[in-house]
């Protein structure tokens, strides 16, 4: 009983659950953009956006309004259908993994029959995951790998040399680093013995030292590096390298279509941060919390959830920090690094993990 879809709640409640999760992810993403501008400002000795609202807090909404009211330019020679399809594919594929995120532990101590219209009759468990899929890890990897099409098709359909170069670079880069990422994910999966995201968190629950960042530190580093490449972040932001490609694959996109790509990039950052937190930092698990409040109660769930979001935000901050620190790779360096260093290291790590798991029967 680890997902909302498996409880006796009627489908209205699932719908509300999806809406809440959607809203939460999008709000975090909107404020990641603001945080990025603020933190980059501080790193570079500037103040950052501070005009809209107190301390610039309303900036994301101002940006959104601006995106909506800007003129929507469509290049004359573009392939129209694919040109319109590309941003939709990019954002849809970025948002879909949301349904398997383990947002927190299940609340088991509340009887939900007090809800109006018999919504919660006979239900005592409220899981904080929308849908439980046996192969959650593969689902996230698969859906995000389909996201490449958004970028590749955008580059091709714009009918512009900068866009095409950006799209090609991006597809090459994402295919290359997906392998290293998949191999790095195998380490924690082997230790946990399951592909289920909640199962992986449960496998790390005994103590702080069972967090997979300790036995799988190599996999953690490989995953973090390839996650940066997968999300097209600095130092791997070659698909949109301003100095050589104007803006890469989204050069010809404007107004809301550009906003969709922009959001997709930040939602992807959120996704890899969730995966990092779940696979290596124990997900929502807080060491010692079950001694203070009983497991399954509302405070336990709330504290766990907040800590989980905190872990995700730490990774988001790290990504911004790296952007303010490192220069960009050259393309041949990027390919050599991915294929000749990251992938072998990840594969050797998988081999060692298999041997250790087999002989120690972890």
């Amino acid at each position, binding site marked *: 009983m680890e997902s909302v879809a498996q409880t006796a709640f009627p489908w209205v409640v699932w719908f509300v659950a999806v809406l809440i999760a959607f809203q939460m992810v999008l709000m975090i993403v909107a404020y990641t953009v603001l945080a990025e501008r603020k933190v980059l400002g501080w790193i570079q000795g500037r103040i950052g956006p501070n005009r809209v609202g107190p301390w610039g807090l309303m900036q994301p909404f101002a940006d959104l309004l601006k995106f909506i009211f800007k003129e929507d330019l469509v290049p004359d020679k573009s392939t129209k259908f694919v040109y319109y399809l590309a941003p939709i594919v990019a954002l849809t594929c970025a948002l879909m993994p949301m349904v398997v995120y383990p947002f927190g532990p299940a609340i088991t101590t509340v009887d939900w029959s007090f809800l109006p219209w018999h919504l919660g009759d006979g239900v005592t468990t409220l899981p904080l995951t929308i849908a439980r899929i*046996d*192969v959650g890890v593969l689902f996230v990897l*698969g859906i995000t790998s*389909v996201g490449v099409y958004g970028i590749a098709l955008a580059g*091709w359909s714009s009918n512009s040399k900068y866009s095409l170069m950006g799209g090609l670079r991006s597809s090459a880069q994402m295919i290359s680093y997906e392998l290293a990422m998949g191999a790095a994910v195998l380490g924690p999966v082997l230790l946990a013995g399951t592909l289920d995201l909640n199962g992986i968190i449960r496998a790390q629950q005994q103590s702080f030292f069972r967090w997979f960042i300790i036995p799988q530190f190599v996999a953690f580093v490989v995953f973090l590096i390839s996650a940066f490449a997968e999300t097209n972040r600095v130092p791997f932001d070659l698909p949109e390298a301003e100095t050589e490609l104007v803006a890469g694959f989204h050069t010809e996109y404007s107004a809301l279509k550009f906003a969709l790509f922009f959001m997709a990039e930040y939602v992807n950052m959120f996704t890899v941060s969730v995966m990092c937190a779940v696979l290596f930092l124990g997900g929502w698990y807080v060491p010692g919390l079950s001694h203070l409040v009983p497991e399954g109660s509302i405070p336990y769930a709330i504290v766990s959830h907040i800590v989980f979001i905190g872990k995700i935000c730490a990774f988001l901050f790290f990504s911004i920090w790296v952007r303010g620190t490192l220069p960009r790779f050259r393309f041949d360096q990027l390919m050599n690094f991915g294929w000749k260093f990251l992938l072998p290291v990840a594969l050797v790590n998988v081999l060692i993990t298999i041997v250790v798991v087999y002989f120690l029967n972890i």
Partner: protein
Amino acid sequence: MVTNAVFFLFAGLAIACAISMVYHKNPLYSAISLIGVFVALSCIYVILAAPFIAAVQVLIYAGAIMVLVVFVIMLLNLDDDRPLNRLKYLYAVGAGLGLILLVQTFFIFYAVMRAPQNPVVSDVAIGKTLNIGANMYSRYLLPVEIVGVLLLMAVIGAVILVRRLNQPELERVVEDELTRRNQEDEIGDFRISI
């Protein structure tokens, strides 16, 4: 009831995408349609309680193989006004293969109708990851090994094809390729546009 409706939705989507893949003149549209077929198929696998196969279908076919296909189409960027001349005998080969496929399909229908109906116990889900892994390394070990050798051969072939040539070797290969293309241009069977 709902499962049936969802099945017909995705089955229809898969067939529509397959037809659009065959009928589109533009290779990129065909590739996009093929991706649609894979995604619809993976949804059908989910209905059939095989989430692992579904996830792997999207991850490998839609996410990896088709990306390479799209990549190649984008790089070549074939012109629309110079279609490849299709060879006549290929129509006959296609018709023959299609006929075989049709016979096979009807045979499967026939076999399924004649087979005794065993209700599936829902606890023993065949599509579960653990069962797939256990079966692959015990009952189906030989096919897995054969596929492994096949993939190894493909990897070695790829390495040989893209290996760095020294200068005289490179000149010889380029010369051979140029003569071959000139001959083909004279025959006029098809043209290669770069």
